[in-house]
């Protein structure tokens, strides 16, 4: 499958890879250069492979409140909310962002889960109407400390007022857009929804952004940026065999509400936890599936590993048994060799 921007990626010289059936740009210039562009200036990402559902009707809020662990009743018009969505046994079906905008809900789901999520929501829809608009809608992310400056060049400076996790209707280049102040990079930034046919917005944002040295950014840097910022990735760090209580998502589980999986989570005896790690003395990169050892016994596995361009270190996330304390030294097995690593928070980078 191709997003509406496929030809533009090619003409920019992107290295295209298959990502869950999508032909997506891995990189345009180099992952490290693109990563640093987002940390210091501004980058533009095509994230149109993500699934976008519209949920409306009288039961829309009830449906989402029942499906999501977070409290949808507290989600006000023109705001966005992050939440896991669980199975009855507490395993994570997906992690999503839902916005309440124009009197309906806009739910952004992982590209690998579109069909599964659609079926799951549909099965629990009560009388709510759910519409998979993934193909009709394009989604771009404009991320970095200068993202606001780029948007202010385009629109009437209204974006200064948009706070993190706020959502607004606006026009960019005469095109109706929904814009949220959200992202997956740890930087300030915006996500911009519009009709797929309006793919010229990509070129126009790059053109307007050129005075801020904007660059297009591929999935490679998207992964290193999210890892540094402590954001988990479904399929790596989260899956149906993982509950929100085993990963740093307790804050999204609101036991005062009723939701699918609540009973299982209330009764779960949590035995493992997802932590960050920093490999010591080498920059060898840990990969998903590498074994993690503590006091000579295996205590878990790496779920995500990469190189941090900001810290100039090899970092990642791994599961360990819950007794393993922060700052403790663990060993990570890469290619039949054990390397010392320090247990850290999952948040490696926090913007100033």
């Amino acid at each position, binding site marked *: 499958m191709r997003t509406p921007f496929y030809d533009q990626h090619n003409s920019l010289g992107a290295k295209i890879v298959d990502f869950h059936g999508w032909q997506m740009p891995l990189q345009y210039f180099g992952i490290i250069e693109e990563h640093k562009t987002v940390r210091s200036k501004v980058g533009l990402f095509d994230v149109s492979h993500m699934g976008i559902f519209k949920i409306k009707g009288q039961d829309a809020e009830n449906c989402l409140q029942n499906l999501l662990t977070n409290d949808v009743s507290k989600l006000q018009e023109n705001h966005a909310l992050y939440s896991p969505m669980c199975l009855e046994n507490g395993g994570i079906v997906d992690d999503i962002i839902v916005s309440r905008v124009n009197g309906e809900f806009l739910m952004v789901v992982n590209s690998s889960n579109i069909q599964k999520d659609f079926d799951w929501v549909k099965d629990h829809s009560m009388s709510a109407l759910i519409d998979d608009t993934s193909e009709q809608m394009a989604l771009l992310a404009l991320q970095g400390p200068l993202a606001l400056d780029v948007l202010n060049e385009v629109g009437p400076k209204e974006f200064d007022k948009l706070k993190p996790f706020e959502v607004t209707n606006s026009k960019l280049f005469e095109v109706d857009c929904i814009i949220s102040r959200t992202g997956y990079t740890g930087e300030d930034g915006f996500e911009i929804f519009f009709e797929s046919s309006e793919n010229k917005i990509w070129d126009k944002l790059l053109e307007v952004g050129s005075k801020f040295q904007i660059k297009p950014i591929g999935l490679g840097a998207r992964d290193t940026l999210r890892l540094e910022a402590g954001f988990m990735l479904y399929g790596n760090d989260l899956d149906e065999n993982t509950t929100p209580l085993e990963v740093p998502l307790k804050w999204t589980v609101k036991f005062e509400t009723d939701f699918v999986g609540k009973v299982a989570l209330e009764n779960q005896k949590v035995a493992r936890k997802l932590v960050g790690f920093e490999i010591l003395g080498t920059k060898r990169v840990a990969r998903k599936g590498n074994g993690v050892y503590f006091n000579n016994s295996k205590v878990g596995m790496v779920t995500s590993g990469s190189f941090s361009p900001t810290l100039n270190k*090899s970092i990642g996330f791994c599961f360990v048994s819950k007794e393993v304390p922060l700052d403790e030294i663990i060993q990570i097995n890469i290619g039949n060799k054990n390397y010392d690593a320090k247990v850290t928070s999952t948040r490696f980078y926090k913007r100033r």
Partner: protein
Amino acid sequence: MSDRKFTESHEWVIIENELALVGISDFAQKQLGDIVSVELPKVGEEFKKKDTIAIIDSIKASSDIYCPIDGMIEKINEELIEHPELINKSPYESGWIVKIKPRDKGQLDSLMTQEQYDKFVGED
């Protein structure tokens, strides 16, 4: 025409002052993308052709580097420890990986020439 020879696993080797200078091809570095770590062998270690002599990590993948010729490690490129990106920037010059004292230079005869390698990777 350079005397540089190439393996099917994308190492290059060239004899300079009786030593076999080894690195990875421009095609290989482009495939790997940004290289962030290089694990080097120790000077004096003996290797046989096709043994793993080094491990390169890029952000996306780890790759073993195979010895193109039997011999002993005479020199390693220590610059790569702090600056692994030299392989991306200059795969045939400052991004060299090891120098090997070869046991039998004749082993290189079976490797590909630049022209044959370019055809092999479809870049001719």
